[in-house]
């Protein structure tokens, strides 16, 4: 018999189906619900998992091949950067604080993402989405590790990065990104992928990564942030997966619409609150700026996501109502955040500084409605205090929002001079929120959010003293907390006083002297 001549040619789609969903089968020795026990409790109704459209078609052999090529290139660049003291080509030592924010705030979330996608890659009963989620779980392991590897060289020379593991777990400000991700991961599988795969990786992704990647390029960081470029083709796959999941849920049953809409409302807000850190980074921390937060919001949210939500309107999806407030806060967000970090600099693991005259002129130009009126006077006053040798510093930890964990520093929308007050009582206890939106999230699942570990509360409860004995006569709670948090004086404070600034200047001086 002659198989070769009669062999059927398979289309790409058919072939990929055989390579993925063709592998699965319906179990009969165990019930399907026992094998996949977690994909129905959220109320999302899926009638036909076979209707899933694979958002990309990558078999493992091709995956290994493409990814290996990318890894070879990336690590060659990292090695060259480390060997050639690439950190001394930075625009300015202040830039290093952006790297600190990244390793402390974002890199640990990549590992969380690996676990989250492994979980749903085990739990969805459709093979197609499971394979896509497994691949993303593997990609996220890549992101976690390439970030840690890329920043490793900075850590050898500069402070504030060595304890990123411990700081991510305990430093109060880092609970903003950490609780965000744990919130998503502790939700059901569909909520997780809506939160991370869609709201974060699709709707907000450019707002997160463009400032970091372009900021790196603008500021001479060709080493640490190369992983950003390298990760972009992974992100493209993750985005198509996130969008496919949303469409799949909406197409499967009309009852899914209100659930999906509720999640989009929640996770757009949760995501934007986390982006406060990015807004601050791009407006205040990059020595050479790329674009302002306000500009990024206009391009990447208003334009791009406006189109996306118009596209989803055919399913009945509407723009999350919180966006109205994001617009109102747009011209305040980064300024309020930087002021907050400046005042609380004793408990940061990166350095802060007051904007220079040129910086302030840039900020005035980018924020003509707000900067000169509300923030310039404050910075000028604080500059005077610095000059007089009595720099302003906040003494007590601020009240935090029970949901997003950001200090409740936000003004009433449309009234910049009045601080917003939102609170409610649950089981006889009072809880505070930054906004109506966080309060709504709390009220929808109070049993969940009462569990949140807020930095200031943890301190008062004595959970941040480590082995120190609070009953000892000479007990100093602040010193005990700092020791437990592993915060050294080198990690915190003003940039101008820092060891990082001094060393950078010294080493750069050596490099110039060598040349001469």
């Amino acid at each position, binding site marked *: 018999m002659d198989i070769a001549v009669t062999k059927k040619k398979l289309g790409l789609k058919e072939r990929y189906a055989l390579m993925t969903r063709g592998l699965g089968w319906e179990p009969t*020795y165990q019930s399907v619900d026992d094998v996949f026990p977690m994909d129905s409790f959220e109320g999302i109704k899926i009638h036909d998992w076979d209707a899933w459209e694979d958002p990309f078609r990558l*078999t493992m052999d091709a995956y290994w091949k493409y990814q290996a090529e990318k890894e070879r290139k990336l690590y060659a660049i990292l090695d060259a950067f480390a060997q050639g003291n690439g950190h001394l080509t930075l625009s300015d030592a202040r830039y290093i604080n952006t790297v600190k924010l990244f390793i402390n705030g974002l890199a640990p979330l990549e*590992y969380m993402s690996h676990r989250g996608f492994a979980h749903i890659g085990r739990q969805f009963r459709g093979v197609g989405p499971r394979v896509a989620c497994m691949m993303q779980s593997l990609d996220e392991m890549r992101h*976690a590790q390439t970030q840690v590897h890329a920043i490793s060289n900075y850590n050898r020379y500069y402070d504030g990065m060595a304890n990123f593991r411990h700081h991510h777990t305990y430093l109060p400000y880092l609970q903003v990104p*950490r609780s965000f991700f*744990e919130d998503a991961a502790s939700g059901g599988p569909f909520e997780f992928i809506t939160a991370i795969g869609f709201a974060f990786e699709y709707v907000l992704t450019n707002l997160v990564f463009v400032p970091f990647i372009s900021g790196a390029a603008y500021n001479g960081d060709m080493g640490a942030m190369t992983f950003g470029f390298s990760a972009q083709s992974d992100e493209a796959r993750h985005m198509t997966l996130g969008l496919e999941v949303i469409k799949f849920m909406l197409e499967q049953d009309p009852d899914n619409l209100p659930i999906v809409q509720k999640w989009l409302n929640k996770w757009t807000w949760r995501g934007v609150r986390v982006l406060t850190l990015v807004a601050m980074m791009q407006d205040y921390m990059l020595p050479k700026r790329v674009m302002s937060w306000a500009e990024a919001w206009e391009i990447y949210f208003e334009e791009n996501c406006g189109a996306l939500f118009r596209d989803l309107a055919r399913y009945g999806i509407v723009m999350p109502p919180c966006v109205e407030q994001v617009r109102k806060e747009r011209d305040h967000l980064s300024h309020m955040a930087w002021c907050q970090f400046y005042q609380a600099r004793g408990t940061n693991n990166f350095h802060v500084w007051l904007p220079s005259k040129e910086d302030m002129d840039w900020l005035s130009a980018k924020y003509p409605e707000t900067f000169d009126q509300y923030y310039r006077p404050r910075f000028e006053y604080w500059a005077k205090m610095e000059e007089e040798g009595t720099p302003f510093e906040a003494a007590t930890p601020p009240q935090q929002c029970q949901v997003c964990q950001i200090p409740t520093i936000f003004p009433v929308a449309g009234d910049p001079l009045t601080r917003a007050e939102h609170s409610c009582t649950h089981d006889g206890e009072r809880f505070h929120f930054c906004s109506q939106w966080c309060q709504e999230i709390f009220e929808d699942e109070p049993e969940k959010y009462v569990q949140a570990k807020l930095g200031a509360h943890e301190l008062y409860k004595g959970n941040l003293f480590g082995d120190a004995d609070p009953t000892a006569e000479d007990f100093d709670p602040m010193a005990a907390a700092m020791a437990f948090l592993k915060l050294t004086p080198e990690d915190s404070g003003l940039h101008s006083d820092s060891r990082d600034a001094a060393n950078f200047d010294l080493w750069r001086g050596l490099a110039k002297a060598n040349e001469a």
Partner: protein
Amino acid sequence: MQMDLKTVNIEPKRRSYAHVAARIGAEKLASRYQEGTFDMQVEGPQHYRPLWDPAHDYFDPDRTRIRMQDWYAFKDPRQYYYGSYVIARSRQQETAESAFAFVESRSLADAMPTELRETALKLLLPLRHVAWGSSMNNETTAAYGYGAAITQGALYYAMDQLGIAQFLTRIGLLLDQPEALETAREAWLHDEAWQPLRRLVEDLFVEKDWFEVLVAQDLVLDGLLYPLIYGAIVDNVLAMQGGSAVAMVCQFQSEWHAEASKWIDAQVKAAIKDTGANGDLIAGWVRKWRARAVSALLPVAAIALGDGAEEQMDEVLADFDKRLAKLGVSA
């Protein structure tokens, strides 16, 4: 302004991240495996209990009965972090690719005796479902295991098994029409020869203790299946009967198992070494699943070996028991 950066000799402030230095010593340079693995998972307080498992923390060591003083004792002897993992696999994938191309370009499949080809298809194609089951069972550890060391290794294993299921699918397409895969699925679902094995795999899908699943799947089932099917049957019996083309396109599996078994052996050894009581647990699991795996694999081996299956199984078992003895598992 030009700078001569390379010749600047500056002293680093530290050699690695603090959590890595605490494990390897502050004076040591960390490898990429160490930096990419140690303490990547949060330990300590977490904000919310998972809605999908309110009895546990999101990361919880109690999802297995194994106890570890150090969850990072689960080291990978291959030192695979993502980059070195994909680079190693991309090389093996290239070799597999040329084997497929070689067999196809020379129409070696057609040159095979019909009966032999049919035996190979009957034996190998349902195994794509077994590989997918193994992938799922390793995904369980990637999802619910504790510590980045074990979740990372298990995820690589899960992806490898997906890759193997896909190579087996390609073998079906190479040796026959796509319908052959459908026939094999029917056999997997209904033929008597495959039912004990399918039952075993499905039982592992609902087993909650991830380390037990790891022992049952990676150490026991795959530890018997690969030497039996690929080592004894494909590389020896079939190859000698004119099926060397089949052996060529299965080479990935044979090589993969030689490597992956080093990984699972290291995990089992680490668990036993870390806490004495783990040894008894593991031995109990091995006893339980070894007996089931043997009776599940015998009818499968008989597809190619007929009455000779039992004798071949005894040989494989003898080697397997030596391997267990080396690990310190008294099964």
